[in-house]
């Protein structure tokens, strides 16, 4: 089987390249570009300069004393809580790190047009932003349902000059937007660059996206060391899993003692059919070009995922997470819609930060993570959480659900 660690594009038994033959040469071309262009001095210098001057990197680390105390009033399980502030990136989420890198790569490859898919709209906004900055036309596929749920981001993409294409097939959400983007790419593969938004999809996307998001973890690790030491655990929300893999990346091999936690969307609950917890409840399958965990039925039909957060309701997950799960290098928990809403409120009122609903899933699991780590280590744990994005885009959803801001 194609599962040796040396096989490019494979993470254990996950990953690979399960696509229509038309796309194989394009993925081979992209793999060569990833190997030749991305490590080059010119590319890294330009990306580094833009990350600093345009995105606002490095993003800060914030100590969250009041939230930590709210989760752990007697201080028995949390020693410290650090927030890595990707919400302070230009466009309001970690997505810009990846979009900017990929659109730079597309330009270097001589591609004339950018396409992307988006769920919540953060990746769409990030890609539209990068395409505007670099002067390339951009089309973004978004599920019709998500366009309703995330109207402010649709307006932002249009203002940035992107064409937003409503996807009305299937569940009208992220997975269908990705199907439609793949169809566009099959049709226009020679001239078009497909900017994938998460660490998912066929090889080389999971590797490319993880390497572009690794900046989160590299910075956070150095910032933690400067503040007194590595955390005991790193926590991030997981839909496709790009912010999580980005912050996990430097710790995975280098720091085996640092525990890694990915938090999925449990929607209405893991025991209902309305969730997006692919790693907790999925089975091994192939979706959008990669072998990974997938929410699907006994016949292999992919199921609709559900989460209050449009950015998490994806029935697949990046293949590297599937491998980290199987090897137990990372643990995956899940938080419900209600728990995420409660976390948004609590973070806002204790820290003055309005976090995205995606991010809120990570915060909702902190009590459980802290309990586990404190128990395993015999002392209160130091936690690092990735604040993947800010919550302005979710105000409508939050108001609808709670009747308050």
């Amino acid at each position: 089987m194609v599962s040796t660690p040396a096989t490019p594009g494979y993470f254990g038994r996950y990953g690979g390249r399960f696509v229509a033959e038309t796309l194989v040469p394009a993925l081979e071309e992209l793999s060569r570009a990833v190997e030749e262009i991305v490590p080059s001095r010119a590319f890294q210098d330009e990306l580094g300069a833009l990350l600093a001057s345009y995105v606002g990197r490095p993003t800060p680390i914030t100590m969250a004393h009041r939230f930590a105390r709210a989760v752990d009033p007697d201080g028995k399980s949390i020693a410290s809580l650090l927030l890595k502030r990707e919400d302070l990136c230009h466009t309001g989420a970690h997505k810009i790190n990846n979009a900017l890198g990929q659109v730079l790569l597309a330009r270097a490859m001589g591609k004339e047009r950018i396409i992307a898919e988006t769920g919540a709209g953060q990746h769409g906004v990030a890609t539209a932003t990068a395409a505007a900055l670099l002067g390339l036309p951009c089309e973004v596929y978004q599920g019709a349902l998500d366009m309703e749920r995330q109207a402010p981001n649709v307006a932002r993409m249009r203002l940035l000059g992107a064409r937003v294409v409503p996807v009305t097939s299937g569940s009208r959400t992220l997975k269908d937007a990705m199907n439609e983007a793949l169809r566009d790419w099959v049709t226009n593969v020679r001239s078009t660059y497909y900017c994938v938004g998460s660490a998912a999809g066929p090889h080389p996307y999971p590797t490319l996206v993880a390497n572009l998001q690794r900046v989160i973890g590299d910075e956070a690790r150095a910032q933690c060391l400067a503040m007194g030491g590595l955390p005991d655990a790193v926590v991030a929300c997981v839909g496709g899993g790009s912010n999580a893999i980005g912050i996990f990346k430097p710790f995975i091999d280098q720091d085996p003692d640092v525990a890694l936690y990915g938090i999925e969307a449990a929607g209405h609950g893991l025991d209902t059919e309305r969730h997006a917890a692919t790693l907790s409840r999925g089975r091994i399958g192939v979706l959008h070009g990669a072998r990974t965990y997938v929410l699907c039925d006994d016949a292999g039909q992919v199921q609709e995922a559900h989460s209050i957060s449009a950015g998490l309701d994806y029935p697949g997950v990046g293949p590297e997470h599937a491998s980290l799960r199987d090897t137990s290098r990372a643990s995956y928990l899940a938080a419900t819609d209600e728990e995420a809403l409660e976390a948004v409120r609590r973070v806002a009122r204790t820290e003055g930060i309005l976090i995205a609903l995606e991010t809120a899933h990570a915060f909702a699991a902190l009590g459980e993570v802290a309990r586990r780590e404190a128990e395993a280590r015999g002392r209160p744990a130091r936690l690092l959480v990735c604040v993947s994005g800010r919550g302005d885009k979710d105000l409508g959803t939050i108001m609808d659900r709670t009747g308050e801001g």
Partner: protein
Amino acid sequence: MHRIDRCFEELARARRKALCAYLCIGDPSLEESEALALAAVEAGADLLELGVPFSDPTADGPTIARAAERAIASGATLTRVIEVASRLRARVEAPLVLFSYYNPILVTGEERVVALAAEAGIDALLVVDLPPEEAGPLRSLAASRGLGVVPLLAPTSDPARVEAVRRASAPPPGAPRGFVYAISMTGVTGANPSDLSSVSETAEALRSAFGLPVLLGFGIDSGESAKLAAGAPGAGADGVIVGTAIVKRIERGNTTEERASGVRALVSELRAALG
């Protein structure tokens, strides 16, 4: 000799181009798909591609995607499609190619699928999102039961890729030699091809590279386009595969009889044009 190889040998001897008809099994129902497949064979289809509906058909255009949604709603699954194949096998001699995306095969179990398909009298598998690099295990399993796995090539496949696919998809001992599926355009099924006039040359190049019959698919929707794509008798492609146009006839019919006569009319037109 395997049924599929015998079919191509007979077609070659008769200097006849092959006509392969694709049906999305379960659209509108499993029973009716069986009847429609029989109608296609009676009207002149030489091979049948039995489509397993999939929830996320990324290589297909809106017509086949809609058919898949209807088929899934009617209860079609991979194993039920194989049951339809088994009933068809009792009534027709035409080679049966099981067309699927990979996830239904992986989730049902490769070994189980191959065993069921072999027992049902299916001759080959065609998995649209399983490039040969990932198809090794399935190809070995299939060969052990006398089944082929059809390789696909696209207009984006340069000579190096054609050679890589040829090496990776050489039929193992026990498998039929089968045919090569040449995608005639960069796009999804059912799109309008920009130019079909040169695809028969591509097919000829692929035939000499593989030493196998080459069927052209995607964008062929009428007798005229079938004839243009296939090229002259004794040259060009060995035949064509028609899917979306058949599915459209089925979609347009309001009754069982209308749907069957629509399929018969189109297949007869294609047959007459191909010679």
